[in-house]
């Protein structure tokens, strides 16, 4: 009863980012309803512009920094920063999907596409801000279920359906496992699923099989979204089958949200058993992720599948930040996510442009691309270098910074982990260079004719190129991540 009385609906105000996204969602929905079934060519620009405004708003409006609903939901500078970054990713995806959604068989559903996307984004926001497992689960499901619909968006392509079914089945399975894990966690708790309360309960020393199982299941559940090995197997097929826009969305935005959430959960509520337990689990998982991802990526010819495996190994690098498990680690992780978003989306922007203009997806089709499309080749090269971590492009800095923060903990084991990661960068460099080789070096005549990509994707490409080139050289983005994390360090009980 007193719960009801104490409920103060003004609390919702400090959920500003969520509100903004919901607002845009509603606007798009209404516009879609009342615009009649013309081509709705205004939808894309409208969504894009609104979205951009929303992003800016999230960025400039200072975070309330308070935790509401009894601490279930936290809105602090860190979450704000993450949301803004996710927004940028989503914005670029909108831009690069602009041409695809106007295809005659998709155009009637283009509003739905945007709506679904906004919903998933909303879910991710909740994930990031959640400080209670219930809210977390809700956010997770909100983020992952609509994605199934988005994956299945290509009605006429069989691959799309196959991808969707694989996705939904594994997703449900993993969420089921996650819930089982959470039920174990609940068994530990003092009857509350607040991260802070759990953190008080779960202290190092008092380990039990149940807790270990719980942690393992939670890792599995979130690892599914992050596509960590061995929870990654859906990734390749889904990425390949899904519409390219959705693939790029999956590969960056949902990953980013999941990574941050993972960090929050494991440093706050499982922080006590970091070095006892999950450090070593993640140690193994990260090594497996990076290595397996690389080993699979070597052989791939289909660009989307290739990017899928590359993103798997990238996820491993992202999770290195979680190994650091301190403010520096989180900041480096967020920065990595940001850089990874622009680099990966740069690559995907090129892929989708080429696909939507020529329908070509195989790496062999890229042979001699530079003869016909020098700018696309240039962008692709930069993106590949950035993903491979080559200076002076942003990827180099994100990698080095995350390595630095991991080694900062000073444990020899983590040095070895970094060494393994570094050696893996050689393999990754190999397959990224394969793309560069196809574009620049292969002597064959280009299979892809010269074409002029639409302005939307141009804009997307330009944003990505700018990001790739400048994010590393200008230091204030990393500074921004660090500041936001340190400002909200109180909110998440960081280790050391």
């Amino acid at each position, binding site marked *: 009863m007193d719960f009801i009385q104490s409920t103060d609906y003004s609390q919702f105000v400090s959920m500003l980012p969520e509100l903004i996204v919901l607002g845009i969602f509603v606007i798009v929905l209404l516009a879609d309803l009342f615009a009649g079934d013309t081509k709705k060519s205004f939808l894309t620009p409208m969504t894009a512009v609104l979205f951009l405004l929303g992003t800016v708003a999230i960025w400039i409006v200072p975070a309330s920094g308070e935790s509401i609903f009894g601490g279930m939901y936290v809105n602090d500078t860190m979450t704000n920063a993450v949301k803004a970054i996710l927004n940028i990713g989503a914005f670029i995806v909108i831009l690069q999907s602009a041409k695809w959604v106007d295809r005659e068989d998709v155009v009637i559903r283009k509003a739905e596409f945007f709506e679904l996307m906004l919903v998933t984004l909303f879910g991710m926001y909740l994930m990031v801000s959640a400080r209670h497992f219930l809210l977390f689960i809700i956010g997770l499901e909100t983020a992952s279920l609509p994605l199934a619909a988005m994956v299945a968006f290509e009605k006429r392509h069989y691959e799309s359906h196959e991808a969707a079914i694989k996705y939904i089945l594994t997703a449900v399975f993993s969420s089921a496992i996650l819930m089982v894990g959470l039920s174990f966690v609940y068994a530990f708790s003092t009857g509350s699923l607040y991260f802070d309360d759990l953190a008080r309960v779960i202290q190092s020393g008092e380990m039990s099989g149940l807790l270990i199982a719980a942690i393992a299941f939670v890792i599995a559940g979130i690892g599914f979204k992050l596509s960590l090995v061995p929870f990654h197997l859906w990734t390749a097929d889904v990425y390949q089958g899904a519409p390219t826009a959705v693939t790029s969305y999956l590969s960056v935005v949902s990953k980013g949200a999941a990574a941050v959430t993972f960090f929050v959960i494991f440093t706050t509520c499982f922080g006590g058993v970091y070095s006892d337990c999950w450090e070593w689990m993640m140690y193994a998982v990260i090594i497996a992720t990076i290595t397996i991802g690389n080993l699979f990526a070597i052989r791939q010819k289909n660009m989307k599948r290739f990017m899928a495996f590359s993103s798997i190994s990238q996820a491993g690098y992202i999770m290195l930040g979680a190994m650091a498990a301190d403010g520096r680690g989180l900041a480096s992780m967020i920065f990595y996510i940001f850089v990874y978003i622009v680099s990966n989306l740069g690559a995907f922007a090129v892929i989708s442009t080429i696909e939507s203009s020529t329908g070509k997806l195989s790496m062999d089709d890229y042979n001699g691309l530079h003869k016909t499309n020098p700018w696309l080749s240039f962008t692709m090269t930069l993106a590949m270098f950035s993903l491979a971590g*080559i200076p002076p492009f942003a990827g180099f800095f994100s990698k080095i*910074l995350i390595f630095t923060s991991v*080694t900062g903990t000073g444990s020899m084991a983590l040095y070895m982990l970094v060494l393994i990661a570094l050696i893996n*960068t*050689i393999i990754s460099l*190999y397959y990224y260079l394969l793309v560069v*080789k196809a574009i620049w*070096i292969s002597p064959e005549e280009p299979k892809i004719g010269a074409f002029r990509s639409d302005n939307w994707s141009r804009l997307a490409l330009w944003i990505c190129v700018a990001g790739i080139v400048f994010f590393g050289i200008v230091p204030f983005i990393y500074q921004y991540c660090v500041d936001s994390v340190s400002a909200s360090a109180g909110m998440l009980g960081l280790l050391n």
Partner: protein
Amino acid sequence: MFENILIWFVVIPVIMMIGLGLCRNSGMKAIRAVMVVGSTALLALSVVLCCDFLRLRGMGVDDEMLFTGSWLWYAPLNIHLAVGVDGISVLMLLLSSVIVFAGTFASWKINPLPKNFFLWYCLLSTGVYGFFISIDIFTMFMFYEVALIPMYLLIGVWGTGRKEYSAMKLTLMLMGGSAFLMLGLLGIYWHSAPEGGVPTWNILEIAHNSAIDPSWQNLLFCCTFVGFGVLGAMFPFHTWSPDGHACAPTAVSMLHAGVLMKLGGYGCFRIAIYLLPAAANELAWIFIILTGISIVYGAFSACVQTDLKYINAYSSVSHCGMVLFAILMLNTTAMTGAILQMLSHGLMTALFFALIGMIYGRTHTRDIRQMGGLMKIMPYLGVCYMIAGFASLGLPGLSGFVAEMTIFFGSFQNSDLFHRVFVITATCSIVITAVYILRVVGKLLLGPVQDKHHLELTDATWFERLATVTLIVCIAGIGCFPNWINETIQHSFVPIINAIQGAI
């Protein structure tokens, strides 16, 4: 920031890249104009720097580094863009400028995609310059990798032969080296500060703190030395060098063998030895064995090669092995010799590769069995090749002799048997070098003309002459008047030697 002269070494290439970006892909004139102006500016800049440096030293300014400047970059990790030069870096910058200058003219008629070629070429030189000017190991490493990656495209696109394989191999092996290097640098960074201090990337501060405890030093020394040693073509990590050089286009071989391989040696003493002196004293012997092997090994392998570029690649293995070998002797004279060897090897290998490129451009073969009597056909190139050869086999009056002698006499200061044995082994290389150099000269330039079609070939053009003369003048200059360079280098080694002595 821009009042610091050193920054311009990075800025000018960037400006050049922008300028090239504005050129049309076919606008050969404009591209050449940009390159000539830019590389000349760089050459002038480094000459000015050199004179200014000597002037300051002459005025008795004996800070360890001059023209220092430091600008905060990544505050949270205390990363600065810190620049500064001592005598060695100044000479290295001079060397780089000379070779960039010569390389520009050596690739006068490059095709296809001249614009992209020079873009990557400028990126490469940016990395090289940045590496030599920076005294912050983070930026140092960054520029190091900046210099590495363009090699892939430069070899892959504009190379010859099995270029894709070689380019990939070269890139991956060097990156493999830099993986270990990175680990070492991270270790150095986190242990750089005394207990409770803020860790730093700045070489001078690290050396001044000397807080890295020996147990860590050994590990880090191995990582960094191997990391740089790969680029220094240290046995057994040298196999990228023959293939890479053989397939690279002329200017790239020049820049790569001439300057890029020097990054290895430079890093070895600037980071591995200077910052980890205790480990250097303790573990030098391992690498002395390896480098000693690569000296003789490279020379012997060069004796039976038939491809001109392979011969020079293996002789580079031998000579760069000499550089690392001398660095590991840990005394002033030998290390000075190492630097002299870097300069001399840089110049003469650049000259070699330039000439090979020119000859190949005419005969369209690099197989010495298919050539002969070229001295008759193209006397200018022939004479230049002979001069390069004599420099390489250490003829007095040319740079090679000075370098090798300094190395031998310096290395001989270590009087225990182990060092003696390896020094004697190293000295044997002067004979083997003579063997393979004269073998090439005899087969390639002298004797009867093998291929009648070669009789129509022409001698060097004006830009080729310009490229070669520049290098030859430098080679002879060092060879005849070595002492001022020698003194400059010796002075710069004082702090490093003190660090080593202090760590015993």
